[in-house]
């Protein structure tokens, strides 16, 4: 493959395009409501109307408004049909030739769509994820060519540093810094890992990106590999995402076939191959050291850091681990420049963030907004508020490691620092909206049960602490607890947070701490009077001095 071939593929693809395109969502959400059947019937209806030469029926990735699926959108008329059944197909095709249809439609100019800014999701719901030509026609793999032919690995790292991109997996570590560390680590063999173990319940951004635009991840990984000097990559993806796995396999096969993966890519000395590793349902494997153990075929238990994976990772070689969304940002940054990317977002959090909006909210689905967008804009304007005239009580971000942000703080801008200040975290991007009917103590118990089940059992604070905290929360919910129990719970939270080995244990108390911070009255309402009177504080231990 040469640049010329790339351009030719792009031009041929554009030339073959038909005047009208019916885009039909084929991501996991819509396929569960028979969008495959919809696509088949649309193709049949187009053939029956004799419009094969004018109309293309294209299966695309996630079209974002998941709650209204299956979705079909017509280009260029922009009509967005919702809750389409196979029987609606003839009516949709008929409407292409003018005339209004009576089918249910959503407004593509509603705030849900207009307030979005796409970098990661640019191709999502637009191109066919199962054809590499479609990605190439959307300027795909051009950034990889530019990087391999015109840039040194150091230039690439510098560009990423300058863009200000931070890891999208949750913690927000500067991506450029991580790449620089791996690039500088001595070692002949280095590895790249894409963390697609999206374990947070309530998060489906990575699934959507993998299903809708798998080649963008492959390109991002290849660029990263060149920058740090690796020649082997792994994508660690959850077994719960069969469609994402099959689309990734397909994408890797296509990229190998045309020489965009393998040896001597773009006639340069750069070689890169990608293997898929399928997880087996362990939340802790989202933690990077546990993930590496799992890639090596072992039990997914974490180990202490340092040494960090950048120095000693997979099979003790320097390893770069980034999240799906981080890799999806790479090609656009190199294509459009670091300054363009740095111009989006806030001072410390650059670019956009994809969120999965779910829970008690009108519009559930996928959104991508610039960093710094207020939470209220996301849930009230874009999400349309709580359904059935209810009131939003809190928004949960960051999954079991995050916290609940109450109504009075909804004007908070969404960036790494602001959310941390409120005791939550950005997390990977799950956003669950809760209304007045949700009991916060129950939510805390739900997450604690999750952490208890998912604790790998390696370190004691997490293994035993989560069980005890869950027990105390059950006791509070059963109205059998006293103020002593609540004090004990807070003590345990502090202990588990500060002494656990890995991120899972260190963040497990967050849902309890954040609900205690903003909804303490809900806990206290459930407490019983203490038969033994208030708890007396323990006698303080005299401080150790140098003398003894």
């Amino acid at each position, binding site marked *: 493959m040469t640049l010329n071939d790339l351009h030719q593929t792009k031009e041929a693809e554009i030339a073959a395009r038909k005047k009208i395109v019916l885009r039909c969502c084929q991501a996991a959400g819509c396929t*569960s409501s028979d969008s495959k059947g919809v696509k088949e019937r649309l193709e049949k209806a187009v053939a029956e109307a004799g419009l094969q030469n004018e109309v293309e029926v294209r299966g695309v990735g996630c079209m974002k408004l*998941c709650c209204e*699926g299956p979705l079909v959108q017509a280009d260029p008329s922009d009509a967005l049909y919702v809750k389409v059944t196979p029987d609606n197909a003839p009516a949709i095709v008929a409407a292409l030739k003018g005339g209004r249809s009576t089918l249910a439609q959503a407004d593509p100019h509603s705030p849900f769509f207009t307030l979005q800014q796409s970098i990661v999701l640019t191709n999502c719901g637009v191109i066919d994820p199962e054809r590499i030509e479609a990605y190439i026609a959307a300027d795909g793999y051009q950034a990889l060519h530019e990087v391999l032919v015109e840039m040194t690995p150091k230039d690439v790292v510098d560009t990423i540093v300058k863009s200000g991109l931070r890891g999208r997996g949750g913690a927000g570590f500067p991506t450029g810094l991580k790449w620089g560390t791996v690039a500088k680590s001595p070692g002949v063999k280095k590895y790249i890992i894409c963390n697609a173990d999206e374990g947070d319940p309530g998060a489906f951004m990575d699934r959507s990106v993998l299903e809708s635009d798998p080649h963008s991840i492959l390109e991002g990984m290849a660029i990263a590999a060149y920058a740090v000097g690796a020649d082997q990559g792994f994508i660690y993806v959850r077994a719960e995402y069969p469609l994402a796995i099959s689309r990734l396999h397909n994408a890797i096969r296509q990229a190998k076939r045309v020489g965009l993966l393998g040896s001597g890519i773009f006639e340069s000395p750069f070689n890169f191959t990608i293997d898929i590793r399928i997880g*087996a349902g362990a939340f802790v494997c989202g933690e990077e050291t546990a993930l590496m153990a799992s890639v090596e*075929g072992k039990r997914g238990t974490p180990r202490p850091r340092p040494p960090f994976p950048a120095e000693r990772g997979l099979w003790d070689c320097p390893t770069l681990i980034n999240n799906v969304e981080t890799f999806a940002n790479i090609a656009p940054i190199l294509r459009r420049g670091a300054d363009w990317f740095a111009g989006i977002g806030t001072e410390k959090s650059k670019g956009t963030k994809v969120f999965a909006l*779910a*829970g008690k909210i009108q519009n*559930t689905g996928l959104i991508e907004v610039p960093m710094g967008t207020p939470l209220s804009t996301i849930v009230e304007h874009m999400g349309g508020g709580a359904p059935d005239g209810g009131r939003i009580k809190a928004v949960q971000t960051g999954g079991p490691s995050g916290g609940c942000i109450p109504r009075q703080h909804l004007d908070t801008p969404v960036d790494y620092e602001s959310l941390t200040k409120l005791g939550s975290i950005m997390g990977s991007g799950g956003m*669950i909206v809760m209304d007045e009917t949700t009991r916060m103590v129950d939510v805390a118990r*739900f997450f604690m049960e999750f952490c208890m089940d998912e604790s790998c059992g390696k370190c004691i604070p997490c293994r035993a602490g989560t069980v005890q905290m869950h027990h105390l929360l059950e006791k509070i919910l059963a109205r059998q607890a006293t103020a002593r129990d609540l004090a004990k719970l807070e003590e345990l939270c502090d202990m588990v947070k500060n002494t656990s080995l890995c991120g899972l244990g260190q963040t497990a108390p967050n849902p309890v701490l954040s609900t205690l911070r903003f909804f303490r009255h809900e806990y206290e309402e459930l407490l019983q009077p203490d038969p033994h009177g208030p708890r007396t504080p323990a006698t303080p231990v005299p401080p150790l001095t140098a003398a003894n």
Partner: protein
Amino acid sequence: MALPPSPEKPRIAARYLPQAAGDKRFKILEAHIKKFQHRHDALIEVLHKAQELFGYLEDDVLRYVAAQLKLPASRVYGVATFYHFFTLKPQGAHTCVVCLGTACYVKGANRVLAAVEQQLHIKAGETTPDNQVSLLTARCIGACGIAPAVVYDGTVTPRQSPESALAQINQWVTP
């Protein structure tokens, strides 16, 4: 001093092959293991394939995998029991997986689960005594936009209620 010659040992894998000889599934599994060149890091991939072929991971299969990959049986057993996805018990003819992710939970997945549990007289993670239905739970299947979701025999079904779930279950249990 030369050691006395050790008696000829049958090849490790062959010790488990006799009972597997007539079973095509072991052949497919062996081909899969060969594809990964018997590498130790392929253990999880191999167990995925084994579960796909056999439905669950019985002891013989685990021993066979251990012998083929030249890994201690303890390591294979350790990995198989660590990950939730692997099951060491046979599954029923039908599976019902209730997603208990946050979005589904907030929208009442626990009520769906409770209704099914009551109907089948089993708890989550169990199989009915007649081996008809296995009731499982999942920690988010990423279908949050259509919560609460339930997976019936591998088909993700959107927006379930206790009533719709029972309607589906009753199709399986009553002839």
